[in-house]
């Protein structure tokens, strides 16, 4: 037990931002679990549980997609020696700059089966990419992507090029230098980007509203459900559960901070 605790503390110290993010997510999960245990005494439980699990189903794949694309394009922008790299990063960062509803508008233009591109994509995929979970995942991925991209580029540019040269000098091919040297050495910055990207995906509202459609039981994520519940009798239930989740998450972060001190 003691060894496990020491290991966990070392891991937490090495990957601070990741540890905080994991603690927040676990804390939210615990709060949700406690609320679930009390479900019999909480009215309108389903109002929260459905959107909660949908949010997890959307945010996890969205973070993975945004992370994979962000790391790959961050690597190209950091290592490539071609003109227009900064312009490409600016274009990739548009979801941060533009209002979420504008992003949602453009996504609708691209994904709707009625448009040329959307029609083609719909035929390729075999089903529509709007007003369903796939649309929510795409919207959350687009929102999370710039955070992953910018963090990955900065972290990869921060890796000592002499270490990469040393790896080439011992015979490692470039793809192994990337996978076994550059990315592991950039892992903290990349993890920080994934953390912020995941948080953005979890809280995505505007683009998800437009592309997902806020359909109850189908595309209503927690962010949408919070606003929807505000004018309904479920409001108190939502308030209670969110407070419970926030308290457990903050308690976890507090304990993490004390264990490091």
């Amino acid at each position, binding site marked *: 037990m003691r060894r496990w605790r020491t290991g966990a503390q070392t891991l937490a110290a090495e990957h601070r931002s990741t540890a905080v993010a994991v603690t927040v997510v676990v804390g939210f999960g615990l709060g949700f679990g406690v609320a679930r245990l009390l479900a019999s005494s909480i009215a309108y439980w389903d109002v929260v549980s459905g959107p909660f699990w949908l949010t997890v189903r959307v945010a996890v794949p969205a973070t993975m997609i945004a992370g994979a694309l962000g790391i790959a394009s961050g690597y190209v922008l950091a290592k490539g020696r071609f003109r227009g790299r900064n312009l490409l990063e600016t274009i990739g960062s548009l979801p941060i700059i533009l209002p979420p509803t504008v992003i949602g508008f453009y996504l609708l233009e691209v994904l709707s089966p009625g448009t040329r591109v959307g029609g083609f994509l719909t035929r390729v995929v075999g089903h529509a990419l709007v007003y369903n979970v796939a649309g929510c995942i795409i919207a959350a991925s687009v929102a999370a992507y710039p955070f992953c991209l910018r963090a990955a580029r900065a972290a990869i540019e921060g890796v000592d090029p*002499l*270490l990469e*040269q*040393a*790896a*080439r*000098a*011992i*015979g*490692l*091919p*470039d793809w192994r230098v990337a996978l*076994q*040297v550059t990315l*592991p*050495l950039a*892992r903290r910055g990349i993890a920080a980007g994934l953390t912020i990207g995941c948080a953005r995906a979890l809280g995505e509202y505007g683009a998800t509203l437009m592309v997902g459609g806020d359909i109850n039981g189908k595309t209503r994520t927690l962010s949408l459900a919070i606003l929807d519940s505000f004018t309904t009798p479920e409001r108190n239930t939502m308030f209670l559960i969110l407070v419970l989740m926030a308290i457990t998450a903050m308690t976890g972060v507090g304990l993490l901070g004390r264990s490091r001190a």
Partner: protein
Amino acid sequence: MSALEVAVTRRVGEFELDVSFAVESGISVLFGPSGAGKTLTLSLIAGLLRPDTGTITINGHVVSDCERSLFVSTQERRIGMVFQDGLLLPHRTVLDNVALAVRQRTARRERRAMALSWLERVGASQLADRRPGSLSGGQRQRVALARGLAGDPALVLLDEPLSSLDESVRRDLGDLIREVIVASGVPALLVTHDPDEAEKLGDVVIAYREGRVVGSRPVERTDRGPDGEGSEGEPT
């Protein structure tokens, strides 16, 4: 056939390197003051930089020929390299660092066994599970030496491997570098600005000044190695 033949020029800002020399078996030393172009020469030989003109031949294979636009990548030159600060990968263990350099297409377990045997040869096998960040400067250079030789290189390049170490560590590690390289039979090119180090470690000293080779002479020594080419007598 020479282990290495260099005849290149390279301009970096105002500085111009224009050198021509050959390296046979044993340890050859590029000796000269800081800024003479020694490390630049190593970078050109290793393929970390491209020459402006000229050719570089390693073990009979042309690896760089500007006229023919031929440039063999660093990975395909079969060189081992020991850097001034070791440059071990900080996120991998000592054993991993050396095992990564083993080029044979063998199973992972065999590569690690080979890496461990190199660590034993440099007296660092007890460090196998440690991370480079927890090693002293001398320990790091021992591991770097093992890594430089573990890939079965045709030539090993050593860029001021002792310059960042204390005097006592330099003496011991200098002896070890010579002993291990001579025993391995791999030709080596070592860069230093220290005349004592050049005499102690080299079989041949190639003198550099302001980007030119200004002299080359053999060092007479008693421990020339298994081929017995060395002549008897005190180091000059």
